[in-house]
């Protein structure tokens, strides 16, 4: 049951992913990407990470994609009138296939060898995913968390500088 569900979602994710690349209209690509994001959120739930699923939807689908669509609208980007040269498409695709092939190859040959920790589904259910994440963020990963604040600040300044109408 679970695997059938998985495969359906995976198929949707991959198909919408392909649509992102193949759609001529950027808006369609964006919408396909949102679809992919939703599929991924589904996976996150399946992987016992409900908080990440929520963040995925809110941040990615909600914020980033909205921003992107907004910019698409703002710039009034048309569909690509001229196709990229077919050789570029072919070579790009070939490389992509290579990437896929190689990734699959080593995924098959390799295995997850990392130190297995204590967190399991029970734990997630018991103390709640948000709490687990929060705990990690504020203890182990306090510094990176603080860095993100600088990162966002810098990004805001940058975005403002680059995009504001008059300096």
């Amino acid at each position, binding site marked *: 049951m679970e695997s059938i569900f998985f495969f359906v979602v995976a198929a949707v994710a991959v198909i919408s992913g392909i649509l992102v690349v193949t759609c001529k209209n950027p808006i369609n690509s964006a919408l396909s990407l949102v679809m992919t994001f939703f599929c991924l959120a589904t996976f996150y739930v399946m992987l016992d990470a409900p908080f990440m699923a929520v963040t995925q939807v809110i941040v990615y689908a909600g914020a980033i994609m909205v921003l992107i669509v907004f910019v698409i609208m703002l710039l009034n980007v048309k569909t690509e009138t001229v196709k990229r040269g077919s050789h570029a498409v072919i070579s790009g695709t070939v490389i992509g296939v290579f990437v896929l092939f190689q990734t699959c190859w080593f995924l098959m040959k*390799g295995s*997850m*060898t990392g130190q297995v920790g204590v967190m399991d589904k029970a734990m997630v259910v018991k103390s709640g995913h948000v709490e687990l994440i929060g705990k990690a963020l504020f203890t182990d990963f306090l*510094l990176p968390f603080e860095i993100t604040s600088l*990162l966002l600040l810098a990004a805001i*300044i940058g975005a403002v*500088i680059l995009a504001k109408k008059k*300096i």
Partner: protein
Amino acid sequence: METIAIPAINLAVVMPEVILSIVAMVLLLVNVFVPGKNKGYLGFLSLIGLAVTAASTVSAWGLPVLGFNGTVVQDNFAIFFKVIFLISAALAILISDRYMVQEECNQGELYPLILFATIGMMLMASGTDLMVIFLGLELLSICLYVLAGFNRASLKSNEAGLKYFLLGAFSTGFLLYGMALTYGATGSTKIQVIYSFVAGNPAVATNPLFVIGMLLIAVGFSFKIAAAPFHMWTPDVYEGAPTPITAFMSAGPKAAGFAAFIRVMIFAFPMLNAHWTQVLWILAVLTMTVGNVIALSQDNIKRMLAYSSIAHAGYALVGFTACNAQGAAGILFYMLSYAFMNIGAFAVIILIGKKGEKNGNVQDFAGLGFKKPLLAVIFSVFLFSLAGIPPTAGFIGKFYLFSAAIKSGYVGLAIIGVLNSAASVYYYLRVMVYMYMKDPTEEFDWAGATPSIAICLLACVGATLVLGIVPGVVLEWAQKAVMF
């Protein structure tokens, strides 16, 4: 619902970053109140900030401290690199006022952005967790994307920013994938943990996930240091970005890339060095050769220095390939020297340049040698240093790097290196040929040097010569910095 016990925080470990962040934010605030033509005060303030940061950085010398649950460390290695970053930031700020006024993009935000970028670099140097390194890298990158496109009115600058952004984001994908695989193979993102885990389970070292993870991380850093074939962005971005930013990018972020690269490779993957030295060997050869060869046919000096910067990354990779303490020390020393000589060279370009990045071709330097002898001599010193001719810092640096490679038995690599360096002489000499051996085609008007650029030039030329003639002390520091 239990409360989260926030662990004891040792702010001393990140004191330089904290100070610099505070300075940057204060600058942001001050910026609002400083009128448009007086933005130079911000530069002055930021220099003070950098000085204070440097003092705080240096004061931690000799006492390695881990902090924040092992995600960050303040050791000699980090300190040496931080000094390089601070110096390049300071030099970049010194040379930017005149340029920014000339190009009419004199915005106060420049300084905080440079400082934020510096913080990013410092985090890359001292981070011991892949997350910290990643975030430092991204902090740096985002600032650089903005800085590269800082001259909004200039299409070239826009292009530079956009290109850098798209390719940077693309490379981030690979870097992240590498980190993910490493995480999967070892169960942690902390360098210390990765190391001890693999040391405890040697079988992991042969796990393809782990190896590929390492390779992809290497790719990510190679992009940052502009190693071939991940160097393609460099010439375009360097050419397009505002010159002071190019100077900054060629010195600081490259060093930061090396800092993180060395940290990850040597600290986390020492057991894989048989793999990554092979990769680095090839990268080094490719990088040196591509950089030097293409530089031969460049007329635009900024672009030529961009290619030369690629080549210099190649030389540093030679030392990296050696995978010994001397090689690492060599990179440290080289990055420091490179900061001085390259930013110095860019300072000269700024002085010669005119609005709209005119006068940036080698032909525009014709006759400079006798019109402005002092400037030409200073420029020659930088060029000789870049070419690796004694008695300049560039020579000592190369000597160290190549001798490290030879020490590890990579004589062939060293030979390719020196041959490249001989080829590079051609294009550095070409500039001198124009400066000294050709007559000027047109009268050039001389805007004069501002005090800040003069200070920068003097500092750079002084450092280039001092590091070339009596490099002993600094080499000693570099050596101490890499005693892991």
